[in-house]
């Protein structure tokens, strides 16, 4: 985002009078609080902030934010947000979508908002299930997910949101999960990035896909299973006893042991957020043999779409006068005078 004047607000200023209607225990509550806590810290102005969403549980988010909000139609939020941003580039737009909304029905729009690089924060709540329609398998559901529409287990291969985003040309990829204390830091980094910032937020659907992320998100043993990335810092986890190194022969990542904090001799690599190739490897690291890569995986800004649109409009209008009367009478014209055209 641009850096307009900072506004003093508190968490309360960002809450609406609307009763929150998510299921008790839903991960969305934690994300809502993380956002409401982060925006005052960023000095954001509620009047200039717009939450735009599609359809699904996550897409109810705007109703609970005391900002401008537009709850649109299924999958199309990126298109509405693009139009709003082009109409008023000063707006600070947050897009809220889910795995079904953003990657199934709206995959096409998510792809284009990322490749165009429209300046906004895109939060994709990934709970690997369709919640609001009562629990069908979603495009991110793991193979074998049992659901009303896949009674003996799903068999289609899941999409990987961060890999999709990177492939579509996103210049910022962040990852976090609903109850993580580090989520605000990821949101802040996304907000600081000028361009389309994609944040995958693993979110626990306690009704239809309960604890599906526990293998890495559960507090117990979390340090062994989470790799929190920081720019310029070595990729260490498990209380700095393990790290991620680059196997130069196979050109792939590997987990190495670190003894006595000597990560350098263990070959652990330092995270460079602008390195797209490493970002790709981090996103694709299979969980299990590897920890889950979290935090800011990739951050390498390039010019935004709205700046290009404005520049093109200026270039195209340069030296031209917006004179409607002249425009209407343009081209090859002829004049009929009052006397010369006598009726035959």
């Amino acid at each position: 985002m641009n850096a307009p004047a900072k506004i003093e607000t508190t968490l309360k200023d960002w809450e609406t009078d609307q009763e929150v209607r998510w299921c008790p225990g839903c991960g969305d509550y934690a994300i809502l609080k993380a956002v409401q806590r982060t925006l005052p810290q960023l000095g954001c102005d509620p009047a200039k902030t717009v939450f735009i969403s599609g359809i699904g549980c996550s897409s109810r988010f705007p109703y609970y934010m005391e900002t401008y909000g537009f709850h649109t139609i299924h999958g199309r939020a990126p298109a509405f947000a693009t139009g709003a941003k082009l109409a008023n580039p000063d707006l600070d737009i947050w897009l809220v979508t889910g795995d079904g909304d953003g990657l199934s029905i709206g995959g096409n729009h998510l792809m284009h908002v990322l490749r165009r690089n429209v300046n906004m924060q895109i939060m994709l709540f990934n709970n690997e299930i369709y919640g609001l329609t009562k629990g069908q398998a979603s495009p991110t559901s793991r193979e074998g997910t049992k659901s009303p529409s896949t009674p003996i287990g799903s068999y289609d291969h899941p999409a990987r949101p961060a890999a999709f985003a990177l492939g579509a040309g996103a210049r910022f990829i962040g990852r976090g999960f609903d109850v993580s204390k580090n989520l605000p830091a990821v949101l802040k980094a996304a907000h600081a990035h000028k361009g389309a910032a994609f944040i995958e937020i693993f979110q626990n659907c306690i009704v239809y896909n309960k604890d599906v992320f526990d293998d890495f998100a559960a507090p117990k043993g979390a340090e062994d299973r989470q790799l929190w990335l920081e720019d310029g810092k070595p990729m260490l986890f498990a209380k700095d006893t393990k790290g991620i190194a680059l196997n130069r022969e196979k050109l792939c990542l590997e987990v190495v042991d670190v003894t006595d904090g000597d990560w350098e001799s263990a070959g652990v690599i330092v995270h460079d957020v602008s390195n797209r190739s490493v970002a790709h490897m981090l996103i694709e690291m299979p969980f299990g043999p590897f920890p889950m890569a979290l935090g800011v995986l990739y951050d390498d800004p390039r010019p935004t779409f709205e700046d290009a649109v404005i520049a093109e409009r200026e270039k195209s209008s340069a030296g031209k006068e917006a004179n409607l009367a002249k425009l209407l009478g343009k081209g090859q014209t002829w004049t009929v005078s009052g006397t010369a055209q006598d009726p035959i």
Partner: protein
Amino acid sequence: MATAATSPDEGLPASPEAIVVRFAGDSGDGMQLTGGQFTLSTALAGNDLATFPDFPAEIRAPQGTLFGVSAFQINFGSRSINTAGDAPDVLVAMNPAALKVNLAALKPGGLIIADTGAFTKRNLDKAHYEANPLEDGSLAKFDVLAFDISEKTIEAVKPFGLGNKDALRSKNMWTLGLALWMFDRPREPIHDWLKAKFKSKPDIADANIAALDAGHAYGETAELAGPMKQVSMPPVPSEPGLYRTITGAEAVSLGLVAGAQLAELPMFFGGYPITPASAILHHLARLKEFGVTTFQAEDEIAAICAAIGASYAGQLGVTSSSGPGIALKTEAMGLAIITELPLVIVNSQRGGPSTGLPTKTEQSDLYQAVYGRNGDAPMPVIAARSPSDAFEVAIEACRIATQYMTPVMLLTDGYIANAAEPWKVPDPASYEPFPATFLTEPNDGENFLPYKRDEKGARPWVKPGTPGLMHRIGGIEKHELTGNIDYSPDNHQRMTDARKGKVLGIAVPDQEVALGETSGKLAVVGWGSTHGPIHQAVRRAREKGCSVSHIHVRHIWPLPKNLGELLKSFDHILVPEMNTGQFKTVLRDQFLVDAQPLTKTSGQPFQIAELEAEIAKFFDDIPGNEGGQVKVNDQQLPSPEAENDQ
């Protein structure tokens, strides 16, 4: 030299009131260009005109084939012209396929100008001709002027050192030159146009000019006996002022720009390539200095959604498409309806269903426009009747959208989009501005109620960014004042009623009669691009003494309040449409009248004679109408404006 196959009859009259010429050739022969330039020179000569471009969906269909034929028809005269004409007086056939496809339309005794150079064995085979029609006597009832245009073109451009293939590209200019001579049109505008078009390739410009001049000189010097004679066509007496030619797509674009200015709003246009609507995107993309942003979206859905997003942020959102694309936009229209945001949706209708006839015209999206959404989703619909009328209608669409906070559908069609006609350039200052207003302060004491309506039933428009008025809107049913989610039964009832009431309450001018009396035996009721042919057919029937009136409806939804009473004052109602009877159904439903359909879905506009024949069936007692038989007669009668000033 000429190998006229038939003995010239009377040929063309030396001074007809109107004449119809059709240029037909391969889709690579440049017939649309030829027609367009002939149109321009005709307009500059002061004749009234109407055109009908008729081209295949394929960009370059295989050369010489029947399905690759591209045609451009122009009707021009020294009298007011309302249609592109029923049957051509002159057919220019650049190859055998063009002759075969278009011959049936030609008037008996009409003139065929054919390029013998293209009537080769190979091309005759491709057109499925067993014998050369120029030589086998099959064209006996026409006048035929056949000579080797290809060879003459190659000769004319020889000094420019072009190869035969390149040289033959100027064939259309040679033909245009001949046509310009035939109708005594000036060549200078075409010279200027060629110089501008080939600015960076002066050789090509010169070659084309040479071909044009050679065609012209051929007419002049070879002035043949018989059909090859110059026809003089005096200018139409028209209102003094500045004129230009305009196509429907241009007029819609300019009307939208004018409408946005009158609303004092920047315009955001979201589009996606589709025939025949893309031309609007192309025009607007060049008008950025008017505060226009054009956005070529990833699909039709994104195009309308981005336009709604821009309206939400305080601009005038506009999207445009044709039938299949409009279908994709349908869900988003519902969102614009429930969130009550202004939006203009232009639908350049084409033949359907599905992909249908991409380059041909139809009016078959009327149900889709009026009824085609989920839920009770009322939306105003207005229709343009001609290319120039599209300018006025586009302004009206912007007015309704911004004044009533609603999406509006503007219907044109493939015919209006592509056809050209002379247009008296209007003075923008003569239009009453309708500035949009944005709410910047609470509207209910200290409270802000996003859905509190004004006397027109419209809710306030608030730009995001306005301090203190933060609120949420969306597609879920909302409370009638706060806009917060509210599914309660009474609230949904009231909101449904409010949305319906707002649209039905839109101020629509009373329906006038375009031609004839306000009561009588027969009302011919039309909408959209059928205006011209209906108008002429009614005119002719009236000259024969038939009690028939022409009613042309611009506001399809809501309908003019007095329309029901007006229709009921006629014994019969005939509704000609280029669909299977959609407006007829709306009229029956709204007014319980016995509206009878006259339908056509051939992808071609109505001919005057077709309509005249149908009208005649209601007037068996009038001589010359027996059994609905009427003589084909393409002479256009004076403008009805003389009779019914509207």
